[in-house]
């Protein structure tokens, strides 16, 4: 896999800055809690802190703490494993195939705007993909529904071509706005698919009902199709009509997988810790609830209430 030198290892400075920011963020939180105490005394009405969200704060600190911890560990050089994500290995093959056939590659970044985290994840993936494509000299076509996404996609792709040493290959007009209307966008992308006959189609981001319209049309021209979305309702259609589908969280993991960048892998490990926490609490909560229902024991009930409180 081709990687730009700057991606291969993290910049020590930027990492120190990130850590500094984390400390700063914690300080803000603590300061906030302090003001809460201060104001709670002077203000008889209520404190500034929303007490209903204590649990979210506690779990938020635990989860973000776990993620940060692994990011720090990974950055300090601890090797991290990442499991195979079906579909991502074929990316390079798909790009190669497109080049051989002299056909373009279609990238659809979903319908959402930049206010959705999955669009940001999609832009990251587009960056990695563009780096690969730049090395192969095939055309990348990115029709976009939101003009903000267009701006970001252009920046990202241009940067990738630049770092791959092919700034000349970057074509601004290949990343273009279509229409904000969902089905006008779908109609136009369908048109692009049947007329340009891309060898590979990527659908990565937030998708709605148009998912199957695009994927079935792509299927009918025999393109290799790789999809991924964090919008659960559309997953079944991608699973049915595409060759590979990144399911939910896999979309967020894909960028770490492709870049193998230590801090990204560390963050992924932190996410796994989050799932571990979820599993442990589900098991504990269910066991306690079972005990409570079978024995009716008062102590069990109290303990289970505490666990339930943590999750509201």
């Amino acid at each position: 896999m081709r990687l730009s030198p700057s991606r291969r290892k993290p910049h020590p400075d930027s990492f120190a800055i990130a850590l500094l920011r984390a400390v700063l963020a914690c300080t803000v939180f603590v300061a906030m809690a302090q003001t809460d105490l201060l104001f709670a005394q002077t203000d008889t009405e209520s404190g500034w802190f929303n007490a209903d969200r204590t649990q979210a704060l506690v779990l938020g600190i635990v989860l973000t703490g776990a993620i940060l911890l692994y990011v720090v560990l990974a950055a300090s050089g601890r090797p991290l494993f990442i499991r195979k994500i079906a579909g991502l290995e074929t990316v390079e093959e798909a790009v190669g195939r497109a080049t051989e056939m002299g056909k373009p590659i279609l990238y659809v970044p979903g319908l959402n705007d930049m206010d959705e985290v999955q669009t940001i994840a999609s832009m990251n993936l587009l960056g990695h993909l563009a780096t690969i494509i730049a090395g192969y000299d095939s055309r990348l076509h990115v029709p976009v529904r939101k003009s903000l996404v267009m701006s970001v996609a252009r920046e990202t792709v241009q940067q990738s071509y630049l770092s791959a040493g092919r700034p000349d290959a970057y074509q601004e007009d290949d990343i273009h706005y279509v229409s904000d209307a969902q089905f006008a966008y779908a109609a136009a992308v369908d048109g692009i698919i049947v007329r340009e006959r891309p060898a590979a189609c990527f659908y990565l981001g937030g998708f709605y009902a148009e998912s199957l319209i695009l994927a079935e049309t792509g299927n009918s021209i025999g393109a290799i199709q790789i999809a991924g979305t964090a919008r659960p309702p559309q997953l079944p259609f991608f699973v049915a009509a595409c060759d590979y589908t990144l399911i939910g969280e896999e979309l967020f993991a894909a960028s770490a997988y492709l870049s193998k960048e230590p801090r990204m892998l560390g963050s992924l490990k932190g996410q796994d810790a989050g799932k571990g926490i979820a599993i442990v609490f589900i098991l504990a909560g269910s066991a306690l609830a079972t005990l409570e229902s079978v024995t009716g024991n008062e102590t069990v009930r109290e303990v289970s209430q505490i666990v339930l409180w943590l999750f509201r």
Partner: protein
Amino acid sequence: MRRKIPLIITFIIGVVLVTGYFVTRGPFNTLYESFSDYFAIITVFAFILGGGSLLKIHLKRVSNRSTDWPYSVVTLAGFLVTLVIGLFKVGNPDGMGGEILAAGSWLRFLFDGVYNPLSATMFSLLAFFVASASYRAFRARTKEATILLSAAMVILLGRTPVGAWLTAWMPEILGFLELPNLANWIMAWPNTAGQRAIMIGIALGVIATSLRIILGIERNYLGRRE
């Protein structure tokens, strides 16, 4: 410097909004509440970029006489006519002060006559694609595909009166195996379990990505390093 300031902005706004979620009053909270509002406003500015891109692409196609260029004329005409009608409320019975989609206005006619049928018909293509996709994909090739297929079949039949009719002969004790009941059970339990696992995973993905963005670890979206 050109990269640092954006990262500082990201950090500040990120921390302020996260804080705003936990705080009941003050500027933090105001910002949290108004972010969507602000975003909607900025998006309108972004329309100018989008419209510019659309015009540029299609004008280029027309001037280069590329394949299918006459259709670009259709796009350009549709775009410009609608834009003028929309922005200046042309043909609005109540003038500039009237409701944008007031009954009888030209924009309303474009919406009801053009936008709406096109949108609904594109959407309805799905009825056909759902059939062709299920015909092709629902084949018992592997164990996973077989599970997918079986679940889909139960729901497909269970959601119509035919399902009830097919299994109505079952004795009462096996009532839970009647197709409508089985379909509802699958929706309520295994489906919920799968959806939840996906949702929890996504939540963690969103949390981690957001955190990386706020802390400046994730910065590809800013593009060029200078």
